[in-house]
């Protein structure tokens, strides 16, 4: 009998313990507080499933479930259809300005989705600029409102989630596998369908999963574009904080169902991927294919078209921010008054956004990278459990988590409400899955014998982690940091519940201004956010280019 913990497992186990402590305190505990309401009766005393029976018995909410899943599925499919050819073209075809395209592709993540939706309505709504221009040419088109419009907006904003991993997978395909297929008499086209695509399918599905979960959780887009189609995340939000009928038990039910749906999808994906791990030992990226001029032009046009189309709401917001607003009403004259009004009030929101995004991105890295280490290096049920718990925030809407925090940390031994730390913590928890995912992908590629070499030379596992693993992961950690930073800077759903007093952020300013008809200030704030996030995006662009040159 050995009771002592094997010493080579002590570090991973210690990290796992810290990870469980962090996630237990700042994820599971707040969620428990929110959802315990869903299984309690009206007086909050007896355990009951009546709330579930009631909600699921109502056609309205069943309709919401069906709508949400259908839209999510449709958006996932269209996103894959758009992004996979794009990924292939960027990985394997001669397309001019690749690094720029890749950097621009991350831009849609910068704008909070409700701002994108606002811009889309101004452009493509019934009275939209583009709609009217097209109508003057006699071209009418269906409404931007409803399922079609939502799917369109999702496709244009979420395609980077599929593009980035799929592109990496196309680059990691061992070219000798393709050559083998062709030497066996397979045409290049058939090789693509029968050899290359099956190899990258896990990457496509991983990206598609992110898109699907985003659509389940997203609230800004359907809030504006769904009109009166019931959508799950919106109904959950209304039940949690609705002006007239905050109903914690019903809201808890919807929150639990939302988590159940996402967890189910995650589990299916894991099952599927577990039986389909195609490791190919590619030493170098496969070469750029030689293709005819026609295909080259078509590929280039396609790539640039998708990227630029996705940026249209973006351009629209920037242009609008330089126009005159009288109250909420837009007048087509150039003006800097919006910016003057924005900064006359205070620079604080901008500084807060920068501060929070930076601190939270650091937090995400400090929590996510060690957890990824445990998940990849410790082979035990504990590691799988930690992986599942660290993936859970994917499935939790920002509003739900934020309310859990307020309920949990407003009194007692740990008081966080009213300060900025609570926001940093919520951001950190929400983005941890991204860091865990991206870091474990890198760790899988680092040969464990490097760690053993370091340990055999006298460095403890902890020192080895700091001196060997971290430097080797640095590139990946850095690009993950930038993406995290950008998505935190545009976070709204949790922020709007948590911020207080002087700690409001740029997205809060946008939201409040749009609510109050201050379209000018909202677009000015959005433009400022765009400009500010351009800095890290440019860094990412440089990083990508260096990576391109290195491989």
């Amino acid at each position, binding site marked *: 009998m*050995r009771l002592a913990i094997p010493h080579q497992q002590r570090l991973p186990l210690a990290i796992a313990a810290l990870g469980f402590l962090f996630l237990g305190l700042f994820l599971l505990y707040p969620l428990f507080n929110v959802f315990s309401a869903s299984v309690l009766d009206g007086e909050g005393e007896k355990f009951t499933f009546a709330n579930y029976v009631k909600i699921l018995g109502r056609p309205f909410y069943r309709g919401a479930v069906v709508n949400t899943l259908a839209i999510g599925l449709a958006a996932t499919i269209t996103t894959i259809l758009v992004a996979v050819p794009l990924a292939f073209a960027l990985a394997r075809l001669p397309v001019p300005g690749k690094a720029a395209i890749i950097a621009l592709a991350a831009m849609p993540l910068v704008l909070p989705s409700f701002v994108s939706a606002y811009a889309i309505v101004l452009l493509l709504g019934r009275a939209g600029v583009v709609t009217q221009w097209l109508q003057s040419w006699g071209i009418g088109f269906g409404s931007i409102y409803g399922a079609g419009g939502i799917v369109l907006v999702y496709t244009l904003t979420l395609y980077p989630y599929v593009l980035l991993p799929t592109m990496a997978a196309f680059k990691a395909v061992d070219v000798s596998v393709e050559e083998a297929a062709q030497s066996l008499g397979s045409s290049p086209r058939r090789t693509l369908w029968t050899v290359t695509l099956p190899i990258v399918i896990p990457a496509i599905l991983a990206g598609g999963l992110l898109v699907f979960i985003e659509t389940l959780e997203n609230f800004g887009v359907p809030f504006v574009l769904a009109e009166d189609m019931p959508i799950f995340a919106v109904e959950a939000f209304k039940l949690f904080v609705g002006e007239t009928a905050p109903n914690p038990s019903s809201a808890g039910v919807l929150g639990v169902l939302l988590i159940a749906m996402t967890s189910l999808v995650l589990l299916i994906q894991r099952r599927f991927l577990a039986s389909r791990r195609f490791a190919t030992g590619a030493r170098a990226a496969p070469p750029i294919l030689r293709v005819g001029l026609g295909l080259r032009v078509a590929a280039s046009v396609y790539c640039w078209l998708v990227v630029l189309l996705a940026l249209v709401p973006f351009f629209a917001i920037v242009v609008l921010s330089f126009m005159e607003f009288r109250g909420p009403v837009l007048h087509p004259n150039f003006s800097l008054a919006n910016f003057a009004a924005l900064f006359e009030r205070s620079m604080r929101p901008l500084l807060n956004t920068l501060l929070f995004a930076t601190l939270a991105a650091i937090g995400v890295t400090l929590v996510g990278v060690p957890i990824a280490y445990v998940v990849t290096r410790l082979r035990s049920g504990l590691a799988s459990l930690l992986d599942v718990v660290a993936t859970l925030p994917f499935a939790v809407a920002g509003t739900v988590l934020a309310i859990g925090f307020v309920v949990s940390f407003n009194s007692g031994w740990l008081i966080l409400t009213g300060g900025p730390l609570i926001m940093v913590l919520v951001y950190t928890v929400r983005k941890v899955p991204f860091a865990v995912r991206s870091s474990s992908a890198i760790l899988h590629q680092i040969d464990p*014998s490097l760690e053993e070499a370091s340990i055999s030379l006298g460095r403890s596992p902890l020192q080895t982690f700091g001196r060997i693993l971290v430097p080797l992961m640095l590139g990946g950690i850095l690009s993950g940091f930038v993406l995290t930073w950008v998505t935190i800077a545009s976070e709204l759903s949790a922020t709007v519940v948590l911020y207080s007093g002087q700690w409001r952020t740029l997205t809060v300013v946008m939201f409040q201004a749009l609510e109050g008809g201050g379209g000018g200030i909202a677009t000015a704030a959005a433009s400022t956010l765009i400009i500010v996030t351009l800095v890290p995006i440019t860094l990412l662009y440089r990083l990508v280019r260096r990576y391109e040159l290195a491989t």
Partner: protein
Amino acid sequence: MTGIVIAGATRTFGTVRAVDGVDLAVGDGEFFTLLGPSGCGKTTLLRMIAGFCELDAGEIKFGDRRIDRLPAHTRDIGMVFQNYAVFPNLTVAGNVAYGLKARRVSGAELARRVEEALGLVQLAGYGERWPHQLSGGQLQRVAIARALVIRPQVLLFDEPLSNLDARLRVSMRSEIRDLQKSLGITAIYVTHDQEEAMSVSDRIALMQSGRLEQVGPPAEIYRNPTSRFAAEFMGTTNLVEARALGGDRAGLVSLRPEALRLAADAPADWPQVGGKVAHVEVLGPITRFDVRLADGSLLKVATLDAPHLTPAPGAEVTLAYDPARITVLP
């Protein structure tokens, strides 16, 4: 300098006994090789010594000090890995200095010892290079220098040459042997290549299915294998029924190809056996040929190149063998 004592070392993965009650004593300064086919447990045993694999039972001592419960980084070993495991984020000098810095060596002492170690592996002046600028052989030299420079109690080699080409393998193995002998550090070397094992080792432990099959100096295991497995794994051999050679006892014997000659070329008192040549290979210094005996079994024969004695396929020949070199297997 340290001897290593392993007693009852056992490790199970699932239902597989990877290492099954191994007892072993390695002498101070000895070059000791763990030899066996893949999956025999040799690497697991090496990783137990290094501290990367827990023992389910048993113990390991360096000298009088029991080390199997110590964390790997405190065991004071130098390890050379199959895939080099040279840190890509450090220069050659940085790699070599890595273990010294962990031992708080610094300044001039550090520089001197790094340079000295690089000199030992014939990489003097390569300190500022980056790993991606080096060839496989050079990388393995860096790995060796990195393990030597800390003057460990024990050197561990995990199939260090298997990624190199054949010619480099031969020259590197004698270099490794010479370095180990000149420094006098106890070394444990893992390989699946019996020729490599024989060329470098003071003693070899032949392993199969997690157990020690036979332990001894290379020549002894070659000449006096105690089992059919040992006889077959160490080089080529003929396993034949004693009766087929004209003996009167039943049982299996091992007869090395080089113990057989054409009767015309052999001492007169060697026993003889007749057969028909099935296949001939002239390999330069030696010639191999197979002879089918009357009972249908095949004898492999190896002789020094002798043009006038080389038989033609299909010819009837008479072979003679050295009776002293017959090993009776249990």
